[in-house]
């Protein structure tokens, strides 16, 4: 899990700040890919891959919030940490409420360094979850979602298209638990809630 490749992105339109972040993160042993605008980032990066994104809120052109909205619309598993300046704090709070991982007020570098490990761990967890999810068959994914909603086997068997017997739902469920390393319905429900972008 620790070995899985993880990409760290920095999006900031201030050249010096961007460069300083690159150097800082590099000095912390983190490989970073930097972009000078939200447009360039969205153009170059596949949002369906897990990773960690440090995103400036206030940028010329596309704002950080707009970039984040686009990622959210694409159900991206990217973990987003906002950089906010003076006066943007309400905006940053709003972003976190709508699903961003965290925010850091400029110019508090230490705070960024403090919050980054958790964000990276989350990104790794999301990547891992995504890979586990990929192992499920489409049918199992559907069953898993229904199980996550707390539906009983009988109901799931009825709702599925095409429908099947409760016994095969039971088989699916066992496979799902095995593949997602969950012990019971509750755990699966929590797991799915933690990774709402999985489809």
């Amino acid at each position: 899990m620790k070995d899985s490749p993880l990409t760290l992105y920095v999006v900031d339109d201030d050249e010096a700040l961007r460069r300083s972040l690159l150097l800082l993160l590099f000095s912390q042993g983190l490989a970073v890919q930097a972009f000078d605008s939200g447009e360039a980032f969205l153009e170059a990066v596949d949002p369906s891959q897990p990773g960690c994104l440090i995103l400036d809120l206030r940028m010329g052109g596309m704002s950080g919030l707009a970039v984040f909205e686009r990622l959210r619309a694409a159900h991206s598993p990217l973990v987003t940490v906002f950089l906010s300046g003076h006066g943007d704090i309400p905006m940053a709070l709003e972003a976190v409420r709508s699903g961003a991982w965290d925010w850091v007020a400029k110019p508090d570098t230490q705070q960024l360094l403090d919050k980054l490990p958790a964000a990276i761990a989350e990104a790794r967890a999301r990547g891992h979850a995504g890979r586990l999810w990929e192992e499920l068959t489409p049918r199992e994914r559907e069953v898993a979602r229904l199980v996550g909603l707390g539906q009983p086997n009988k109901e799931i068997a009825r709702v599925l298209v095409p429908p099947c017997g409760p016994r095969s739902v039971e088989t699916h469920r066992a496979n799902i638990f095995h593949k997602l390393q969950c012990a019971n319905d509750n755990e699966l429900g929590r797991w799915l809630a933690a990774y709402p972008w999985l489809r």
Partner: protein
Amino acid sequence: MPSLFKRHPWRTLPVVAAALALIFAAGYFAEQRELQAKMDAVRQATAAHVLGLRGLVEKHDFLPHAAARHPDVQHLLQAPRDADLQARVNAYFADLQTTTGAAALFLIDREGLTIASSNWNLPSSFVGESYRQRPYFEDAIEGRRGLFFGLGLTTGQSGLFIAEPVRSGNTITGVMVVKISLDPLEQTWRHGANPVLLRDSRGVVFLSGVPEWLFQSAKPVSASDAAWIADHGQYGTRRRFDVLPWTIRVRDDVPGFVLRTSIDGRTRDYLALDTPLPGLDWTLTVAEDMREVREARRLALALGTLAVALLLLGVLYWRLRERRYAEQQSARVELEHRVEERTHDLQQAHAFRKAMEDSLLVGMRARDPEGKIIYVNPAFCAMIGYSPDELLGCRPPYPYWHPDDLEKQAKDSDDALNGRAAPHGFESRIRHKDGHDVLTMVYTAPLIDADGVHRGWMSSIVDITAQKQAEARQRDQELRLQRSARLASAGEMASTLAHELNQPLMALSNFALASRALAARGEAAMLTGALDDIVEQSRRASEIVKRVRAMINPQRADYATLVLGPVIDHVEALLKPELNGQGMLLRLMLEDPAIKVRGDKVLLEQVLVNLIHNAAQAMLDQPRHRRRIVLATCRVAQGVRISVSDQGPGVPPEQLEQIFAPFFTTKPDGLGLGLNICRTIVEAHGGAMTVANDADGGATFSFILPIVQ
């Protein structure tokens, strides 16, 4: 024409060969057919002749036998000296001869002497003549029937002699002979068209339709045969029998043979058939002229040649036609090709023109002299949102005319149609189909067709909306720039300052932390770079600070004598859009707009803008009817007092003291610098700033400036 053959000599050869073969085959088949017909004719003629001969012979066949039975005949042989009997027999014979038409009847005794004859009374009478060497006598005396053709020994006339022995009991007492003349037959043959001839067993011709052939032989007569003939006086005293002047050719395809001979000096070919006559030991040869066969062949050849020639002509004609057709075809193809090329050129030209028209951003519209639209290009359609179908054929007023400018449009259109359009174009506001306005520049030129006839007017229409909007935007931007550069409220400026400063500060902090890590790892080169960056970012931060300070530094103020009214008017004009947007009403209550003060116009405007901003923000939570700001001026002892009052909640009493202090703020994102800066500016102008809460709610910020006389 010869080229037709020369073109493919190797192909022509078999054709010629086949044609020749065809001709000859036709000839051959015609010949065969005619030959078969001829052969049939020969056979028929032969059968007829045989029948005639047989009839002739059989007719007299019984005669000697019957005569031999006659008692007088019998008696005469017993008593040859009986003259009376002899006379009776002679009469009987003569009677028989006349009745049957035989040439002669005569009776010969055992010694060969004639004792009675039908011609007893004629000079050529046979009576008394000896015929003992005649073969028929020899045969008959030995009890056989004698049959012999020969020349009469007495008469020299040819005839057929039929002899029967006359018997008396078992002994032969004499021979009864009937001579039949074949002359009538021969005469018939001579008159016949085709030669008929009879040969005896030795091959000598003794009866012939062609007199020249008489007593000639088909093959040389052997000496013994010749002797026999002479001995028996068959053909008189003849001893030599020439070979017939025939060239005989036997054909495989028909029985019989072809003989070539010369009759009356003319060479002729005959188809001949030999038929042996068994009872008579003769051979009957019937010949038919081959001329018809040859003619049939010739005719067939001629017809075949004609047919082939016709066929050939047909083929030649056909080939000629084919070739002409091919030529026409190729000519047509060439023509088509040329038409195609021409069409292609035209299409190219058309495509080129179309591409040109389509690529034009300038709208094009052509009208006839009456104003009917006859052409529009895509750019024009795109500009006004109508399709070409909707536009073509339209007459003024056009659908895209702006309803507010109808009169002007009509006049412009009229001018253009009358050739009075301004050469440098005129501006025209038109209405897009979806309702928005399009500003255009219209240039009109006469439309002259290829014949030089004036067909109407061509207008190019340039969409200048964007340009106009850009101009408007630029004006707007300039105004805003002016305002933010010269009149930005101190709060806004401070906020910008904070954000601006945050960037280098964050970079600084980043570089510093990175430097620490790099130093720990001993990355000297990178560390140096990072430190350089730190220095650079510090300079950047100080630049920002310097810039702001320069902006609000009263020391750099440009002092002048100012009329207060226009300054306030300018502030009102600058803020009006913003205040209107917030539903704020700004009321000016100027006691004397002409009062003059000494100060920096920009800085004084900044103070007023800042105070009005603050007043507006204080009233954002107020109901609309209370959103009123009063800017008032009045003379006081120290000069002129300028006050800005709002109807907001007022300043809490405990904050009245510290409201001008730096970094005091009630706003969530405020820096607390605005009022502080204002007070600094006012004080720099030799004035003082105060704040007071009004009795009916709200706060009044005021300052006094000295008056310049």
